[in-house]
């Protein structure tokens, strides 16, 4: 493998192309616009790549749905207020079990907020719809994972047919690094919902309440069965740890650096990093915390969106402390100070 000097957004388009995606719909918004521009630039030479800059994120999301119904690997990318508008189509994708792939670059909220970074779109990514949140959400912490999780996302989406989000941020999309990308993953095949010689009528509105409940319960069963196959977690230096940091995305990369320094000072601390925020690695979390862990630090650029997720999945009581900085990045020294104070 050769090393390449790539931006985060170039890693995104590369991963989407390698995954077999050939349609993209999007609307410009910082910090995800570069993905749209880069895809369109690449399409000037690669005629397999189709695109449309739509009138808004609503149209982008529904065009993605239409394209997927017709059997094309299609994706979109958005951020912040655009993620809100995208909920309409994501909800249809959840209802119709469409393999909708969205690369979401979190920015600060509420409202138009700030434009580069936060970890405040966790709730929106998982539970932004009027349903049960049957969505797959990956959270990459570096460019290699950004590539790998996008490849996983397309495969999971098309195999299990749930909307799938790769939840990143503008810091990562703007990061430029020399990296080697392992790209030899097998791609899932696509399938159109319609055949020309076989009539099909697809609903997403129900007259009988019990009928909808049955559908949801079946979808939930499928989701839980899928969870066993696709849940991803990274454990870093947890074998002899007495304390655990829980963090995701970029914050988890910072936490690793802090852990290395803390261990040099003799503090036995490790990291639990959920790579899939949904389905959440519940079994892995509880089996780790049941191994003589005295204290957990939940660290995030939000006022507790990750903490709530962790608490929903905890089976036993544990001593929890938090470092929460909504809409700003977290530095190594801040984590060290938190742990050693």
């Amino acid at each position, binding site marked *: 493998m050769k090393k390449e000097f790539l931006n985060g957004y170039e890693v995104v388009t590369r991963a989407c192309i390698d995954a077999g995606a050939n349609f993209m719909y999007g609307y410009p918004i910082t910090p995800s616009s570069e993905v749209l521009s880069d895809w369109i630039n690449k399409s000037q030479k690669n005629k397999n790549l189709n695109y449309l800059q739509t009138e808004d994120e609503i149209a982008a999301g*529904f065009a993605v*749905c*239409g394209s997927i119904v017709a*059997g094309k690997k299609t994706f979109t990318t958005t951020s912040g207020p655009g993620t809100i508008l995208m909920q309409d189509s994501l909800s249809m994708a959840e209802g119709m079990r469409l393999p909708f792939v969205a690369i979401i670059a979190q920015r600060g909220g509420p409202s138009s907020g700030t434009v580069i970074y936060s970890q405040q779109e966790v709730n929106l990514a998982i539970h932004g719809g009027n349903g049960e949140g049957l969505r797959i959400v990956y959270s990459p912490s570096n460019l290699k994972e950004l590539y790998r999780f996008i490849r996983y996302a397309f495969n999971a989406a098309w195999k299990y047919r749930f909307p799938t989000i790769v939840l990143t941020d503008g810091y990562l999309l703007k990061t430029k690094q020399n990296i080697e990308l392992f790209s030899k993953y097998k791609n899932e095949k696509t399938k159109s919902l319609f055949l020309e010689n076989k009539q099909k009528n697809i609903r997403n509105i129900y007259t009988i309440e019990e009928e909808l409940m049955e559908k949801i319960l079946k979808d939930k069963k499928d989701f839980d069965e899928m969870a066993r196959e696709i849940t991803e977690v990274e454990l870093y230096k947890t074998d002899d740890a007495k304390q655990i940091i829980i963090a995701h995305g970029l914050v988890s990369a910072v936490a690793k650096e802090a852990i290395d320094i803390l261990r040099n000072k003799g503090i036995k601390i490790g990291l639990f990093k959920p790579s899939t925020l949904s389905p959440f690695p519940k079994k892995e979390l509880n089996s780790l915390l049941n191994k003589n862990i005295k204290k957990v630090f939940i660290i995030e650029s939000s006022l507790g969106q990750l903490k709530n997720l962790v608490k929903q999945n905890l089976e036993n009581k544990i001593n929890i402390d938090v470092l929460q900085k909504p809409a700003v990045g977290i530095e190594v020294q801040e984590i060290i100070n938190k742990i050693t104070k």
Partner: protein
Amino acid sequence: MKIKSSFCPGCGQVMILQSLYKVLQDNKLEDKAVLGLDIGCSLLAWNFLPINTFQTHHGRVVATMVGYKRAKTDSVSIAYTGDGGAYAIGLQSLLWSAKRNEAVIVIVVNNSIYAMTGGQTAPTTMKNQKTATSPQGYNEESFLGPELIKSLNKKAYITRSACNDIKDLKKVFNKAIKNQAKGNFSLIEVLSFCPTNWKTKGKETIDYLENMKKTFPIGEVK
């Protein structure tokens, strides 16, 4: 044709959809056709015709069918919607699809009210018309969708018809299908009966529709 209808008795959509199906059959395009449905009374068309159909969200059928058509260029992609879905909540997508000359056919059923939700004021409500949300009578002018949209696209086929003129419906559907085959956008607004919400019977329903034609001129917008 086996008919399973969940439309109200006297609903104009039955004539519109059957005429559409006849034209698809005449052109041997039933298998190529996909009917995308907006939410509102249009959703009831999901199992009415023996062709591929799917329901979308309110105001979102045009954007969805744009995605479908671009992904399957040899399909006959039809977005079927009411006046509220087309001209209020979904107007942005409709305007931009027309402006970009997307090769989809949009059929807008105009019955002058939001029928599924109980007769509220719609973009096509007529001046002085009483509705559930304009109890004193609507005091604005009606929204003329085809006339507005024509200015955005010279290649578009844009017309208005009525559910009680089957011959004209077949003519306009034929033209729209041919226009889509050439890669162009079409919009067909069809004035349609809603005796349930108009609270009309028999001839009153026909008279109501004929009266609508004074506000909404029938024929191609050029």
